[in-house]
């Protein structure tokens, strides 16, 4: 029995539950204010489906799962490689968000203070993006440890917990994507 691993799992599950209820309120606020902006621009006019970023982020769940499986099998170099792929995919997602925000702010003049759409859009997508950044920091550290030789098979449980967080961030994006780009457009 590995009680340290059990503790870690219980802790991360608790953390994810708390994070879920944090996101839930931002999602509820977004849904509540759909169509209530007093002035434009409106989502229909300015939002495009971020398909490339979404595909990158969702597929990174697969690559991080490959990384944890490789680590459990003791293949450290392969673990590092899959982690690197995961980080690159995450960065690609962030780049697509950055590009979208630049277009909205510079091109369309939509900021957090423009209308209710801006007020609810940036915090919701931004909260998710900040979670992506935190996940990327953790994944990059794991990748760096894999190359430096510090990462061993005994750490498989811990890397798995990082991957749980990453799956959670992906799951949140599915909700945000549905609410913002499908329902809200």
């Amino acid at each position, binding site marked *: 029995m590995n*009680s340290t691993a*059990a*503790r870690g799992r*219980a*802790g991360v599950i*608790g*953390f994810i*539950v*708390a*994070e879920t*209820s*944090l996101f*839930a*309120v*931002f999602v509820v*606020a977004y849904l*509540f*204010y759909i169509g*209530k*902006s*007093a002035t434009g621009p409106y989502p229909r006019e300015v939002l495009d489906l971020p398909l490339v970023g979404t595909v990158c982020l969702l597929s990174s769940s697969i690559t991080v799962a490959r990384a944890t499986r490789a680590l459990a099998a003791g293949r450290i170099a392969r673990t590092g490689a899959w982690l690197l792929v995961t980080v690159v995919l995450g960065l690609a997602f962030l780049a697509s968000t950055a590009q979208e925000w630049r277009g909205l702010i510079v091109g369309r003049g939509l900021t*957090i*203070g423009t*209308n*209710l759409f*801006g*007020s*609810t859009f940036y*915090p919701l997508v931004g909260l998710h993006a900040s979670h992506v950044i935190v996940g990327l920091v953790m994944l990059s550290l794991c990748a760096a440890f894999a190359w430096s030789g510090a990462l061993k098979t005994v750490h498989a449980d811990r890397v798995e917990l990082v991957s749980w967080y990453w799956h959670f961030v992906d799951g949140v994006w599915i909700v945000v994507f549905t609410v913002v780009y499908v329902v809200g457009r």
Partner: protein
Amino acid sequence: MSSVPTAVPAPHDIAPASESSGVLATLHEWVVTVDHKRLGVMYVVTGLVFLVIGGLEATLMRLQLTLPGLTFVPAETFNRLFTLHGTTMVFLVGIPIIFGFGNYLVPLMIGARDLAFPRLNAFGFWVLLFGGVLLYFSFIGGDGLYGAGSAPAVGWFAYAPLSERAFTPGNATDYWNLSILITGFGTVATAINLIATIATMRAPGMTLGRMPIYVWTMLTVSAMTLLILPPLSAAQIMLLLDRFLGAHYFDTQAGGSAIIWQHFFWFFGHPEVYVLMVPGFGFVSEIIPVFSRKVIFGYASLVAATVAIGAVSFSTWAHHMFTVGMGGTLNSFFAASTMLVAVPTGVKIFNWLGTLYGGKLRFRTPLLFCCAFLFQFLCAGLTGIMLAVAPFDWQLTDSYFVVAHFHFVLVGALLFTIFAALYYWFPKVTGRMLSERLGRWHFWLFVIGFNVTFLTMHIPGFLGMPRRIYTYPADRGWDLLNLVTTAGVPLQAVAVLIFAFNLVYSLRHGEVAGDNPWEAWTLEWATSSPPPAYNFATLPGVTSRRPLWDVQHPDDPDGPHE
């Protein structure tokens, strides 16, 4: 690896403390500690200190309301006082005391060495402490745009849009916001910690069905905390975005809603009351059996009722909002779901009465406080059901009847169970008994003072006295009632002074307690008083809900009867 057996070195925290002594060394030990017992004590002491501060704020308000037309406390100051009083009592008294006891008792009761994440635990405490300091720093830092020095004056609920920058300029509201936000992070961290501990670190044989009721209550409220505190944090982040970045979440001129803050706040705020109260039920469920010399009556139903209260509490929040115009359907739903809470709560009352019934009662101070709790909590519950009836609430909302109701919950029920718990577990924590004689003085003065103040307070509510007013004219018929309400304050203040003296005096001069002074049966009494840093040298086997009974009565163990 050498094959020569060597003595296993003790972990360094088991080894005797370093030779250096003195105040600084002691302070250093406490500041750097990650021990759940020390952190638990620090939580509870923090809560008691803030209890005195919050009590002084209440005293100032009561002095101002003693007679009609007084000008002792100006209107603006009065608003600050009730804001700080409410915020302090919920976030800086209730939460630290409840989670402090959880910190101290949960690992001992389930036979664990510490919480699952000791350093996270220390983080939770320090974040809470400095969050509290930040709130009170608003006295000198909150001046912002106007005036010199101010404290938040938006109520503990800080209803937006009234707490938006247009209506509440200056920094005081931001101190409230940031302070509660960061104490929230600490509380969520501690809740996660307790859940992980209870889920993974129970002693062999300590199945879920054998856990002390108190541990069940902490598991329930920790789970609730994970679901209710982050929504409050989210709403507070939205308010910060509105106030600092010009967002429009609660800005009605931009199409924002004037009541959605109330929904977010009370989705936290109502379950929060149960987060504070349910561990109080846990205290009572541990104390009453020991002082009745019986097993708890209906363990399974008591656990089920605990979890049921937690579950139902998520669908009751909008009974705080009957007067905002939600419409008949929602009003009916929230009225019905609020009344539903009375069912599991009623089950618990009968569990406690059934335990007392036919018991060999020992009326020591902890049981006295539990008995007063039973009466006062019943009153609190009954006025709660009255207020759950929406039309009744329309009549009495924002009146002193509501104030009296929730003080019966938070003082008459919660604070009384906390006093009971302090008398009950003080010997375990310090190794010395609290004085029984002073305890009786504390009990009788407080129970009389409490009822003089808060039983009376119901009546001006019926007579139409609104809450949060800083003064009132003489011709309303509220004069005598307010005078009596304030007259109870000195009785309670003296009781608290006696209690504080008892704590300090007994720490040095109390009767030596021994490991198990109450002849109790749960695991925390199986180790020495105070427990060593490692908690248990050896654990008794757990084969029932009362492991120490089984140790003392090997011929008649509990297991076959459960």
